[in-house]
């Protein structure tokens, strides 16, 4: 990790830590159902307890996403979403809140715009960095260069299947936090959080990561409580997207408030 770059994502997680709790990270797709609504939903996330916000770029071939997010991003594209609008969403949320705003994107849209150009515009919009579900450090040389140049966080993923060598390599490559995939699978709500998540977080910490956040299949305050006991942050996606779908901005605010109640580690002990 480059030491001379101030990580916005790390700062947000550390603020939560100073309050004795894990950070809450909420995912919403840009442009769903339209650009302005996604800005308002992001602001509602931040005002109701999310420390970091993950804005997804709707993409034609989202292989890591389950039905809820696929349906939302497909609708966003059908409604005319353009990739450059993601910078408006990031700027709109950062202007109104203190949350760190990351963009989650499949790699081809970034490559198409140009990695340097995309990074420059993201930094100008006040974005913290990128979460890259289909970019592994092995292929990321252009992104290393651009993220260092513009001071952006690089959030790579680790999975229960990652070998110790790959954990170590990915931890070294990451800045901000490391995204631990709780299960072998795709996004979507599930009944229970997999037991493999806790071990993965411990292994990732042991590999040198200061901050490890857990996502995939996290949808209820109970899930949040369980994960907050051992991880630095909890990532919720599909459940929030379903809230936007079913109840709009108000439903996002309400769910975020409920989820954030599970963050305190002392309640986890009770």
């Amino acid at each position, binding site marked *: 990790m480059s030491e001379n770059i101030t990580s916005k994502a790390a700062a947000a997680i550390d603020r939560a830590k100073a309050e004795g709790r894990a950070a809450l990270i909420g995912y919403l797709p840009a442009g769903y159902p339209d650009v302005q609504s996604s800005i308002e939903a992001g602001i509602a996330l931040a005002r109701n307890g999310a420390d970091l916000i993950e804005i997804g770029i709707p*993409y*034609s*071939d*989202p*292989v*890591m996403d*389950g039905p809820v997010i*696929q349906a939302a991003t*497909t609708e966003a*594209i059908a409604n005319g979403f*353009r*990739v*450059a609008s993601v910078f408006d969403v990031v700027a709109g949320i950062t202007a109104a809140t203190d949350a760190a705003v990351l963009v989650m994107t499949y*790699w*081809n*849209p*970034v*490559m*198409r*715009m140009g990695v340097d150009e995309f990074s420059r515009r993201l930094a100008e919009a006040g974005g913290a960095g990128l979460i890259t*579900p*289909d*970019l*592994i450090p*092995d*292929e990321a040389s252009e992104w290393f260069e651009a993220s260092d140049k513009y001071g952006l966080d690089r959030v*790579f*993923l*680790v*999975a*229960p*299947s*990652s*070998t110790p060598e*790959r954990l170590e390599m*990915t931890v070294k490559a990451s800045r901000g936090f490391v995204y631990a*995939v709780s299960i*072998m*699978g*795709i996004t979507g709500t599930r009944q229970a959080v997999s037991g493999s998540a806790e071990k993965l977080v411990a292994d990732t910490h042991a590999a040198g990561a200061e901050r490890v956040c857990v996502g995939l299949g996290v949808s209820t305050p109970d899930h949040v409580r369980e994960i907050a006991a051992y991880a630095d942050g909890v990532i919720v996606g599909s459940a929030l997207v379903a809230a936007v779908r079913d109840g709009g901005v108000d439903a996002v605010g309400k769910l975020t408030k409920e989820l954030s109640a599970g963050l305190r580690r002392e309640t986890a002990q009770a």
Partner: protein
Amino acid sequence: MDAPTSKPEQDAADAFLEGGASLRNASGPYFGSYGGRWMPESLIAALDEVQDTFDKAKADPEFIAQLNDLNKNYSGRPSLLTEAKRFSEHAGGARIFLKREDLNHTGSHKINNVLGQALLAKRMGKTRVIAETGAGQHGVASATAAALLGLECVVYMGAEDCRRQALNVARMQLLGATVVPVTNGSQTLKDAINDALRDWVSNVDTTHYLLGTAAGAHPFPAMVRFFHEVIGEEARAQILEQTGKLPDAVCACIGGGSNAIGLFHAFLDDASVKIYGFEAGGDGVETGRHAAAITLGRPGVLHGARSYLMQDEDGQTVESHSISAGLDYPSVGPEHSYLADIGRVTYEPITDTEAMDAFRLLCRTEGILPAIESAHALAGAIKVGQRLTEGKADPSEVSVIVNLSGRGDKDVETAAAWFDMLDENGNVKGTTLSTRAPKGPAERTEEQN
């Protein structure tokens, strides 16, 4: 294409032109600047396992003997090289030779790859294979190999393709496979691959993803090519035996590009042999409704590899269009992108109309009903034959090999509709004979009630 040829491609082109470097040793992960592993971390361990198992198997005489035995005694290899004498008259008089992959068990080249990968799945201790399919050929081949080797098989197929290829859906089910219609996106091959990848990441402990084309993340492009190299090796020996010399050109159709890379590979270092890949031009590349990724795409990443890709200004994948379900894919295997950039292989589009004209021509001149995919290669060979014989006193000195990658039984309904042979009920005109899949006992009973 607005991407300039990058340095590695230029170096390779120079080396090849100087006669120094072989193009036959590309083992991946990169082919010039193409290929790689643009994949979720969750799947990297599985890709490593496939690669490791493949590397060891390739070097294991027992595995090779097992594969050769299946190729010979199950698939029926070597496939024939048939001279198409009456068809040749339409190709400027050049001698046209058909590499008869249509005669393989299951009716296409796809069996070569699935037998190899299914054996690898067994070696890895997997009990389940999943596959994507466009035309249904790879799905049928996968279901076949799974039945033969006692593996569970699930095939993802775009709902649009299920409709176009209903008989192949039934074939897969008869072979014991589960067919899952994919209703996402354009409901064709690329969306079937997306759903297969989602299945794989969720079931990777028990499941091997039997990818059907020489695309995707490393090691798939190099591995799928390896299992198809037998096509070109046989064809090269057969043409030498039949004509005493190498062909002037070899031709194949390109969707993902597996039959093509299998044929091309044996000829890559034969500088005198011109190599042509024919992409699906759909309604014509000028209409935007096509699947000509190399001709009109630009480099991008899809399904794990960097390659030429049909994409819009935002990097969203553009839906491809072709009368041929098997070529209806918006990208192409990464080695083809590399071979295009260095100029070793020439890639050209063939429209639906040109392909269907060649389809009918082969039926009527040779008594062979080709897959519509392969008809693109035939249409291309007509052009190549005419070009290469121009001004030649004896055009029969020119010989061209065409990969007849599959048979056309699956395409009878599409062809009958194209040639206006059906009435409004889908019956062959003047008969009550439907080309559609027959109804099962359950549906018949329902109608009677």
